[in-house]
């Protein structure tokens, strides 16, 4: 197994990671930027290759921010200041114990080429560095619903990712459902790609949530973006249904229709207030986002549960976690969107470079750092208000059927999960795993984790954080073949 060292390792080349890598490099640090995709941008700025899409910016917000970061990254790569390792994922992350420390390295990562992008070579590599900035991003949070395993049902973010890279919608007529402003963004992408949107179903009531409210005033760009979506939806006469959820998806071999239900103030289905919507071949589901926290948990950094229920890493004003040398930026410190992630990435990049011995001086740099501090606070305030306006519906289990699959990988139905939770006193996700195999499949609980911990917690006594940590505990952040593990040097 080969090994490499550098001053600062940045994990993830999305908004936060790009900003962190560029900033640390500006300070003079030798940076290694690791990303699992072929191209930089993360999920937010995911795009097709230039030769396949001459104008990728048309699908994006803040594209000029991306192109500025990407070209500065390229210049730093060309100058030999940044090594950009695309198509690689981080499998493990850990602190180096003082006894094993050589030089100033405090953290160690095991990385591997992403199998889908590398035919053949899969050897694991070890990276050691005095400072690591984790910017792992997030994926769509899911709640199960009868019929959600039918082909044609996708994560809302998956629909948008498809459009951004393929230039067409993965269906003809869509319904978007769940909660949060991202549903509007996904719906806008479908319309822009020439698809139809039959409805956008927002589970929240949104009373008291005005995009031009006090919190939004702190982040004017967010208000403008929201208004743009609303205008586009209005132009295409797309109904934006509040306190409404898709509570069943119907179809023989694929999604063909949905049942829409009105929800009460607890987010539970109101009987008799159902509507059947047919001629639908694409259903996009999204209940906010889940930050990828397994590497943070592996390192042993302090975590907490955010207002939206996500497990996030605790950081100080410099994006420093409770673990020496470990910095966190972007959604992992609380889901707040790409603009906030860029700001946090810059802060973390500066701080990580400092940790590695590179100080940035000068009045201009100080002023920029000061500005970022203010921006960070404003974005956080906006995000908190947004999360409060879009809570997970407390009563979501009211739309579940006994046979609704909760764990998509191991095909565990709701009934089996409930029984295990009630009778086997498997009152936390780990217990449910052992008895029902929920969360033990390929995705390692990434799709069913939210549902499983709700079910477990409801019948047990476990706290929200313990439960969230149990879900996020993954010894390997990505599946590794036995042959690749066997190749691993045991002393490393």
């Amino acid at each position: 197994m080969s090994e490499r060292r550098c001053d600062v390792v940045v994990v993830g080349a999305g908004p936060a990671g790009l900003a962190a890598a560029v900033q640390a490099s500006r300070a003079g640090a030798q940076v290694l930027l690791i990303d699992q995709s072929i191209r930089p941008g993360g999920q937010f700025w995911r795009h097709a290759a230039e030769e396949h899409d001459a104008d990728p910016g048309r699908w994006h917000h803040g594209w000029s921010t991306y192109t500025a970061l990407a070209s500065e990254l390229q210049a730093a790569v060309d100058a030999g200041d940044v090594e950009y390792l695309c198509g690689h994922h981080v499998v493990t992350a850990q602190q180096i114990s003082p006894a094993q420390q050589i030089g100033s390295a405090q953290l160690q990562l095991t990385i591997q080429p992403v199998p889908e992008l590398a035919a053949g070579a899969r050897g694991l590599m070890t990276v050691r560095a005095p400072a690591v900035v984790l910017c792992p991003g997030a994926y769509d949070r899911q709640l199960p619903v009868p019929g959600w395993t039918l082909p044609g049902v996708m994560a809302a973010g998956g629909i948008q990712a498809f459009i951004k890279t393929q230039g067409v919608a993965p269906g003809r007529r869509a319904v978007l459902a769940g909660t949060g402003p991202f549903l509007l963004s996904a719906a806008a992408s479908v319309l822009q790609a020439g698809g139809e949107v039959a409805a956008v179903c927002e589970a929240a009531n949104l009373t008291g949530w005005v995009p031009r409210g006090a919190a939004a005033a702190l982040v004017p760009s967010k208000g403008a973006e929201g208004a743009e979506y609303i205008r586009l939806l209005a132009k295409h006469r797309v109904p934006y249904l509040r306190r409404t959820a898709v509570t069943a998806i119907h179809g023989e071999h694929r999604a063909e229709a949905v049942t829409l239900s009105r929800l009460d103030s607890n987010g539970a289905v109101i009987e008799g207030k159902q509507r059947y919507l047919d001629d639908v071949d694409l259903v996009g589901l999204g209940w906010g986002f889940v930050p990828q926290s397994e590497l943070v948990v592996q390192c042993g950094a302090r975590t907490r549960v955010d207002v939206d229920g996500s497990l996030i890493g605790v950081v100080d004003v410099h994006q420093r976690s409770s673990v020496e040398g470990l910095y966190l930026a972007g959604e992992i410190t609380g889901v707040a969107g790409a603009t906030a992630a860029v700001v946090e990435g810059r802060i973390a990049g500066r701080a990580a470079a400092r940790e590695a011995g590179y100080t940035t001086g000068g009045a201009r740099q100080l002023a920029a750092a000061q500005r970022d501090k203010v921006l960070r606070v404003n974005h956080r305030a906006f995000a908190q208000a947004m999360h409060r306006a879009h809570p997970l519906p407390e009563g979501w289990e009211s739309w579940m059927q006994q046979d609704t699959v909760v764990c998509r990988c191991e095909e565990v139905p709701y009934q089996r999960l409930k029984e295990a939770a009630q009778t086997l006193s498997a009152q936390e996700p780990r217990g449910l795993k052992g008895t029902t195999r929920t969360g033990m499949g390929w995705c390692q609980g990434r799709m069913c984790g939210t549902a499983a911990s709700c079910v477990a917690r409801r019948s047990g006594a476990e706290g929200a954080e313990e439960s969230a940590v149990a879900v996020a505990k993954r010894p390997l952040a990505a599946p590794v073949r036995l042959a690749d593990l066997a190749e691993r040097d045991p002393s490393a």
Partner: protein
Amino acid sequence: MSQTVTVTVDGEEITTEAGRTVAAALMLAAQRPAWRRTRFDHDRRGLFCGIGVCFDCLVTVNGEPALRACLIPAEEGMVIETSERGARGE
């Protein structure tokens, strides 16, 4: 964009636009909303998360099993096999 790529899907040649992922080629060119069958219920699955997290879209490519179709760029001559082989058009 006029460039095309030809791949084999379960023994059948499919021509798709260049720049497609294997998942997109299956959906758009092969007209297959689903291509994996689950182990227990033999349920049909296709693209769900679309970003490499859910592992619902697994295919075999050039003999290598369990690869995420949403992440693989379709390349000329690629041999794609699905677990729904022979179960089409029911």
